[in-house]
């Protein structure tokens, strides 16, 4: 139940923390290198029949494009929020464990009841957080304003890929720092357009799509 939270958004498993069904989502293939990856780094090769690996690699590549080509700065606020909620829940669990060990059962009843209820309340909060605040957003990036005066513009990337379906939807949201208004652009394409028959992601086909989305939002901004 409370299993999928830290990985929740990515694996699409049952709501809540850790991955009873989901895989650890450090970008397949490119997760090991710690330093800035270039776009034409070793090509990402995954099992093309594995839905979650496909989605993860598409998401990671979209992130790479946005962060490296346009030099935006990634903001970890959403992930940190999830992390803090999980940490607090674990803390309640540990408190319950230690208290029960030190004061055997019947005396520890009120403290235990309190911890259990708080834990499940935190789980509820986590589920609400993942469903409403995070949705399926996997990247929040800031563009620092060159003049330094206005607040940053925020770009958000979210995607969806249904189980056993080949249509991948990528949505780019732009929130202007100055006017606080939101604009979005998205595309839905079959994943067959981006992967070749051996399961390698072809950046030459994928990158223009992302740039197109980005530019369509950026141009509107200039016109306004």
């Amino acid at each position, binding site marked *: 139940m409370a299993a999928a939270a830290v990985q929740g958004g990515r694996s699409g498993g049952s709501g809540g923390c850790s991955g009873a069904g989901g895989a*650890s989502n450090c970008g397949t293939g490119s997760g090991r290198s*710690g330093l800035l990856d270039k776009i034409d780094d070793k090509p990402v090769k995954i099992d093309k029949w594995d839905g979650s690996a496909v989605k993860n690699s598409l998401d990671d590549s979209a992130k790479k494009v946005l962060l490296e080509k346009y030099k935006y700065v990634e903001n970890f606020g959403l992930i940190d929020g999830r992390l803090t909620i999980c940490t607090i*829940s674990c803390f309640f669990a*540990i408190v319950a464990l230690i208290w029960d060990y030190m004061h055997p059962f019947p005396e520890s009843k009120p403290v235990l009841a309190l911890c259990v209820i708080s834990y*499940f309340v935190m789980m509820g909060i986590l589920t609400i957080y993942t469903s409403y605040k995070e949705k399926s957003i996997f990247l929040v990036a800031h563009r620092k304003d060159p003049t330094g005066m206005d607040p940053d513009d925020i770009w958000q990337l979210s995607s969806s890929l249904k189980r056993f379906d080949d249509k991948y939807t990528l949505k780019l949201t732009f929130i202007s720092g100055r006017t606080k208004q939101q604009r979005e652009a998205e595309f839905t394409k079959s994943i067959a357009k981006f992967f070749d028959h051996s399961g390698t992601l072809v950046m030459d086909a994928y990158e223009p799509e992302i740039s197109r989305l980005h530019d369509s939002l950026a141009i509107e901004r200039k016109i306004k």
Partner: protein
Amino acid sequence: MCRKGLRQNNNFFSSCHVWSTLYTCKLYYQVLNFGMIVSSALMIWKGLMVITGSESPIVVVLSGSMEPAFHRGDLLFLTNRVEDPIRVGEIVVFRIEGREIPIVHRVLKIHEKQNGHIKFLTKGDNNAVDDRGLYKQGQHWLEKKDVVGRARGFVPYIGIVTILMNDYPKFKYAVLFLLGLFVLVHRE
């Protein structure tokens, strides 16, 4: 979701990771994941303890002394509410002082005082004699404080796994090893 490289950002939690390597960051996520699974199981168990009032709300029948009602390997659900008095004919799970394995038997006789204090005698359905031979040296009756709980429901045969794991420790380690392997492989 992993942070590629160290980038400057403006929230305090992330700034804790500025000093650490990518590896530590990933490690923390994995540990937290694992911690969440364990905490959920733990909280559910503690929650059951609080709701039923018993320190061990689920027990496995270990011997055949209650046949044909309960067989070896049945799972029992217990409650231990103060408001429910123990009456003759009820099945109780109790612990004898000095022994840690709980025993599941039926109540045979009760002596009750005005203030609610009781002493009772138990016997297994399938045993020829009552449990006095099992009690501590010099003890002839059981009291409320020895009771772990009263049986309220059961699920047949599921507890056989627990019995196997106790009788054959190698089986337990094999199961744990396979589970760990499965989790690791699944993650990659």
